[in-house]
């Protein structure tokens, strides 16, 4: 490179010599420190020439011009256009937007990053907005250290698994608190229709294109100001606003694309299935001891039709149902915004429409949204403003996961491939309790419409110099309307039901009122004081009305009003919260930073004896770079140590009335045979001492900038310890109850986070930056009175000493090459394999996770690349559990191609045991054989764009291509290692009928006027 500059230099000198020589010699210096700067790139405009300042910061231009227009660029400084001539050749560069000077949004205010004592990740929404998922939280995967994000399914608009520094709770919520423009928004799915275990994401109601910045508050010092809701981290979303005194800017964005499943399951063919089942019968017959069993397995089912069989194996056909269900899905996205401002008013108006088909027919997500953010200066001292977001999210829903009736993925995947799609008489065939796939695809009619308003109104007033008052009123309102219609072709609506319709309308509303008073004072340029006090009152009501009808005159009637039998139900629940909070900060000479925060929360949720809780935190920072011994040391551009400690709480996710002992009214029964009369029954046990969970968190961190921030490193270690876990603690059934809410367990999370940002190349034409992060979290249930089992068949167990998301299984050691029988570990050594031999094997939480992103730009081209990875997480593959049933399920379940690896004869070495109905080979359901390594590395997105800037009347036009999930490296045998069957928060990595995340390709154009 250097030679090239020298060459250029020589070349330009030569040119100059040829004409009338005029030499300009000057120095480049730092505008603040006045120190000369070496290695600064200086481009001469109108030419291709570039020179570099020398070790003393000097540069020389030789040529004929009297004046040169230069473009000066230097890492860590703002780019600058300057005019130089022999008389005025000094160039003074302003230090650039350094990371430490970034404005970071914190609870109830903003701070410069250099003054932070806490751990906060900031994500610029523009970097991730092209990722074709519905919720912005899913877009953040791999972008923020310490934040684990997994999409549970490949269905757009579905909930994601988000954990900030691990999981702290079992029965209360583990999701972070989401705040959009000051509104604590609801993040609990309002879904009630069965979609096979999935749940919709309320976050998907927010248009990612409206978002400017996302901050993730991680440690106690940052989150304690959110008190009883801060333990799982806080995500603060700031939407776009206009600027005062700026011209109206119109931005138009359109993208379109296609999505497809990268890979599906590998199934046996009809003949293979038949061969396996016959082998199962033959082996079972050989093993049978009782007369009944000998009769049962006497004849292989796949024998000639003439002998009453299903035909010989080789006569079986193969029907591919997966191909019918999966499609190439279309994705379309339209965005339009107008922003600007005058002297007293600024505005942002945005409109957006997104339409995403799922790769599974007929599911889709589409969202139309509108945003209006306005701020107005009433006077020099008073400003008022509003933020409004209105969204309509419409979903075509369907059952993809567990459950046979109406379950399209199970129907497609789990029906044995040899079974025909139609009966001999041409009618659609239903097998093994599943619906007919084609009937489902043609008749599916399950829809949900979410109408959401999130808005905020504020008044800011400067009462005295430095003393500011703010009052704000917020509303989060969601009308969630669901309807199902199952006509008489489907299993659920088939005769004698004759059509089944349900309608459920849920309304969730939260109103919030907040006041803050803040005062800031700087004394003698050294002491900087700030104090904030405030209060919040908040009320939430969720209510729903449900109606169901069955017995329709024909398939043309689809409203419940036409049904012969109609039933209805209603729910209502409410919670109130009132809080007071304060933060005091002090910094001395930009060197030492201290912060203290406290919040008192009073909640209606808790027991009579425990209404109020107090959550304090302290933090301190030491900016070593400001110390004399480091101030002049150029190689290190920033160095800061941070420590914080504090207490936060968790009260979300539990029933609003969990502390009360209540009787339900829904237990009617007749007095005689003339119909139901009202009845009551005990519902839950009281716990007057029920209270919030408490999480103590310690955090220590280092921020390091090297070589004028060419490399920025942030490193944090933390330890979280949660006590008084809100638990639905099992009680002995003889009480008449199964569980009650109590504060019993303790959970710890310990880990570290490392984020490295580098600017690899920065020149006029070519820029390259890299971000890398890696996080580790170790979770442990420190105390739990009794183990708690999860999901059907208790696949997952929460128990003391283990991590959450642990699988509870029988360990298959090997398949005996002589007998073909699976040998299980006899843990208690009693000679038999029974429940006492089940053990914690494997865990769905990763050992490490993170991401790597690269951004490159060359002239008008830009290239972005994001890799996300996870290491050490396990998946329990329930699809294989069913698909490697060894023939025990015969015609009721598909057999996977992997079943063909079964043991057949002495000497065979395999982990797939001999097919038989007897013994433990295929009857022990919780078999560790189906536990797989779920580590993965995904090329999550690759974006290539080109910006045209020289079009009249147009600021910029960018055309781009984005590919998502282009490559996945994993050992997992299923189509996608990022899977989970259920929205149950205590379960991760349980894969059954989960649609994989699609690979997608999008083209887009972005016009700014």
């Amino acid at each position, binding site marked *: 490179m250097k030679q090239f500059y020298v060459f250029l230099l020589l070349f330009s000198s030569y040119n100059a010599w040829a004409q009338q020589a005029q030499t300009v010699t000057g120095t480049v210096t730092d505008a603040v420190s006045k120190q000369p700067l070496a290695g600064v790139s200086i481009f001469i405009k109108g030419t291709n020439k570039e020179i570099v300042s020398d070790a003393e910061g000097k540069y020389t231009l030789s040529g004929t011009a009297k004046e040169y227009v230069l473009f000066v660029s230097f890492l860590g400084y703002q780019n600058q256009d300057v005019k130089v001539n022999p008389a005025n050749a000094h160039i003074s560069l302003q230090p650039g937007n350094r990371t430490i000077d970034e404005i970071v949004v914190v609870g109830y205010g903003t701070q410069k990053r250099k003054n932070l004592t806490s751990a906060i990740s900031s994500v610029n929404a523009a970097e991730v907005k092209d990722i074709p998922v519905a919720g912005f939280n899913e877009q953040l995967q791999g972008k923020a250290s310490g934040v684990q994000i997994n999409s549970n399914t490949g269905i757009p608009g579905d909930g994601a698994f988000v954990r900030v520094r691990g999981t702290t709770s079992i029965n209360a919520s583990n999701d972070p608190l989401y705040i959009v423009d000051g509104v604590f928004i609801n993040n609990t799915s309002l879904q009630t229709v069965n979609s096979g275990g999935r749940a919709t994401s309320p976050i998907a109601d927010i248009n990612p294109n409206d978002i400017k910045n996302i901050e993730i508050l991680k440690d106690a010092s940052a989150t304690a100001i959110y008190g009883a809701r801060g333990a799982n981290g806080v995500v603060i979303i700031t939407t776009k606003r206009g600027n005062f005194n700026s011209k109206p800017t119109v931005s138009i964005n359109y993208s379109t694309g296609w999505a497809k499943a990268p890979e599906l399951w590998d199934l046996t063919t009809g003949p293979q299935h038949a061969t396996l089942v016959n082998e199962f019968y033959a082996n079972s017959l050989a093993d049978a001891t009782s007369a009944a069993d000998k009769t049962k397995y006497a004849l292989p089912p796949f024998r000639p039709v003439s002998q009453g069989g299903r035909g010989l194996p080789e006569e079986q056909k193969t029907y591919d149902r997966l191909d019918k269900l999966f499609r190439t899905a279309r994705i379309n996205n339209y965005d339009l915004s107008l922003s600007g401002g005058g002297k007293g008013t600024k505005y942002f108006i945005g409109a957006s429409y997104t339409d995403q088909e799922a790769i599974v027919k007929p599911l889709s997500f589409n969202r139309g949204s509108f945003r209006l953010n306005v701020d107005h200066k009433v006077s020099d001292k008073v400003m008022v403003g509003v933020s409004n977001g209105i969204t309509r999210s419409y979903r075509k829903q369907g059952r993809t996961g567990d459950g046979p009736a109406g379950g399209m993925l199970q129907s497609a995947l789990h029906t044995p491939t040899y079974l025909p799609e139609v009966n001999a008489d041409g009618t659609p065939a239903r097998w093994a309790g599943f619906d007919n796939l084609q009937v489902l695809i043609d008749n599916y009619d399950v829809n949900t419409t979410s109408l959401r308003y999130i808005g905020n109104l504020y008044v800011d007033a400067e009462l005295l110099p430095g003393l500011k008052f703010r009052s704000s009123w917020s509303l989060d309102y969601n009308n969630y309307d669901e309807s199902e219609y199952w006509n008489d072709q489907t299993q659920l609506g088939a005769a004698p039901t004759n059509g089944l319709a349900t309608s459920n309308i849920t309304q969730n509303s939260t109103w919030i009122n907040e006041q803050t008073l803040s005062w800031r004072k700087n004394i003698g340029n050294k002491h900087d004081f700030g104090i904030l006090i405030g209060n919040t009152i908040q009320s939430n009501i969720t209510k729903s009305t449900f109606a169901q009808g069955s017995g329709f005159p024909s398939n043309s009637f689809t409203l419940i009003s036409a049904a012969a039998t*109609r039933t209805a139900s209603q729910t209502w629940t*409410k919670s109130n919260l009132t809080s007071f909070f304060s933060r005091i900060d002090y910094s001395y000479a930009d060197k030492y930073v201290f912060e203290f925060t406290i919040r008192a929360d009073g909640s209606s949720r808790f027991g009579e004896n425990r209404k109020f809780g107090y959550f304090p935190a302290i933090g301190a920072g030491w900016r070593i770079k400001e110390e004399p011994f480091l101030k002049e040391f150029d190689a290190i551009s920033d160095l800061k140590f941070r420590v914080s400690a504090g207490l936060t709480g968790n009260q979300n996710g539990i029933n609003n009335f969990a502390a009360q002992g209540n009787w339900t009214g829904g237990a009617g029964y007749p007095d005689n045979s003339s119909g139901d009369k009202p009845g009551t029954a005990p519902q839950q*046990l009281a716990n007057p001492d029920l209270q919030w969970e408490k999480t103590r968190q310690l955090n220590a961190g280092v921020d390091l900038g090297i070589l004028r921030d060419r490399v920025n490193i942030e490193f944090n270690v933390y330890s979280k310890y949660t006590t008084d876990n809100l638990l639905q603690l099992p009680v002995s059934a003889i009480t008449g109850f199964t569980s009650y809410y109590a504060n019993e367990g303790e959970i710890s999370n310990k880990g570290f986070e490392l984020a490295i940002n580098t600017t690899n190349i920065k020149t006029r034409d070519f820029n390259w930056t890299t971000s890398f992060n890696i996080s580790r979290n170790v979770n442990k249930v420190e105390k739990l009175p009794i183990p708690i089992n999860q999901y059907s068949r208790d696949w997952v167990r929460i128990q003391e000493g283990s991590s959450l998301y642990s699988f509870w299984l029988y360990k298959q050691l090997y398949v005996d090459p002589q007998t073909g029988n699976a040998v299980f570990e006899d843990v208690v050594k009693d000679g038999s394999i029974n429940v006492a031999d089940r053990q914690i094997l494997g865990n769905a939480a990763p050992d490490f996770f993170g991401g790597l992103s690269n951004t490159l730009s060359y002239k008008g081209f830009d290239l972005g690349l994001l890799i996300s990875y996870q290491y050490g997480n396990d998946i329990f593959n329930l699809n294989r559990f069913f698909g490697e049933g060894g023939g025990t399920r015969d015609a009721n379940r598909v057999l996977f191609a992997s079943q063909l690896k079964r043991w057949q004869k002495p000497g065979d070495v395999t982990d797939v045991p001999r097919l038989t109905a007897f013994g433990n080979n295929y009857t022990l359901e919780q078999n560790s054989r189906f536990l797989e390594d779920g580590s993965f590395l995904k090329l999550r997105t690759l974006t290539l764009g080109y910006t045209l800037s020289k079009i009249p009347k147009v600021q910029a036009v960018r055309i781009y291509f984005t590919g998502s999930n282009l490559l996945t490296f994993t050992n997992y045998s299923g189509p996608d290692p990022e899977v989970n069957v259920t929205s149950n928060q205590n379960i991760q990595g349980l894969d059954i009928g989960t649609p994989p995340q699609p690979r997608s390709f999008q083209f887009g154009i972005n016009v700014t006027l």
Partner: protein
Amino acid sequence: MKTLQYILLLITLTGCNKFLEVKPKDSIPDDVAIVDKASAQAALRGVYRGLASDGYYGNSFQSIGYLSGDNVQWTGSQSIVQQFIEHKVRSDNATVASIWVAIYATINKANHVIANVPGLNDASLTTAERNQLIGEALFIRALAYFDLARTWGGVQIVLTPTLSSADKKGIKRSTLAQTYAQVLADLEAAEPLLTLPTTQNPVRANKETVWALRARFHLYQKEWALAETYAGKVISNTTNYQLLKPFSSFFTPASAVATKESVFELSYSATYTNSHRGQWQPPANGGTRQIAPNNAVIALLNDPLTGGTRSTLLGKTVAGLWYANLYYRSPATDPAYIIRIAELYLIRAEARANQEKLPESKQDLDAVRDRTGLTGSSAATKADLLLAIENERRLEFAFEPHRWYDLIRTGRAGTVLNLTDPLRYVLPIPANELTIDPALEPNEGY
């Protein structure tokens, strides 16, 4: 400064504790649950609904009785159901756990009524009404302990309502004899409190229902004379209870509920549906047919010499698959049949045979056979008669929960089911319960 005043106002307003007291609208606090006549009646209905819940007579408990017998097969994928058919039930079987929970929940509900109604201070509640409320709850508690005893052996006995989570700690299992003694005590207490029904009402318990359960209870205890007496007391009321002809008329048409056949059945409605039909009906009828009659019972029911008109219990799909059609209604309002008059005839027949009253025994047996269009039994000896009664019960209650318990109580499970390990004659105590409650002991062999 107006704003500051406003803040102070808000603070005082929110400081008010009332803001933090929110009460639900669809439930009421414990202490006002049973306070007068109406609330006591509502609470008693809740006990019946508990008895009729999915885990108990709604589905799961009934399934033990027929799955563990030899009449049905399982075509579904879950081996937890197959475990019953193969008599290899594991202690972590989820169905076993759900039944255990549902029965004790019903007991707790009954205990609330039994404990609170005697002290109610409500002038409108007459002594007869008060007795009726307590008597019905006692009957249901008796049935619940009877079901626990015959399924698991001796169990923990709780006779008081649960008021806090710590209420029921450290209670040991009673012996089988003690558990059955509790059943008898409750039945004996209920009997004088309940009256004879003025008109037949099989969805609620009355004095005759108590007699019917006593008949069954004494049969299980091999107290033949008592069994005969109590069965006879119910049979003699021919106004209320009759063996309906044809056989199917106690369950078809769909309007046939609470027929004269039923001494005690549980009522379901569009609001409270009976989940039973789903597993029995074929997909064409909106079910899964995961539980289906096996070949043996299909042959017996379809044989005119053994099944008679009981073949109407079976249906056949277009594809030729047989299914049981006892639970078929849509919406699923099929009653749960707990005691039918046919059972009382067969109880008396068995009790009489065991007392060597062979002609009288045969008379009762033939009454049941005649109703289903069969000729009289050819059994001549006591042994033949007992076998004939056993076989009759197998088909008469083909898809009702009797077969397993019959074979266990008569000691015939070894011969008929080839189940020789007596430890398998009771189900395992749910593994979860053993973990939760250190005072609870497992059943031997599990």
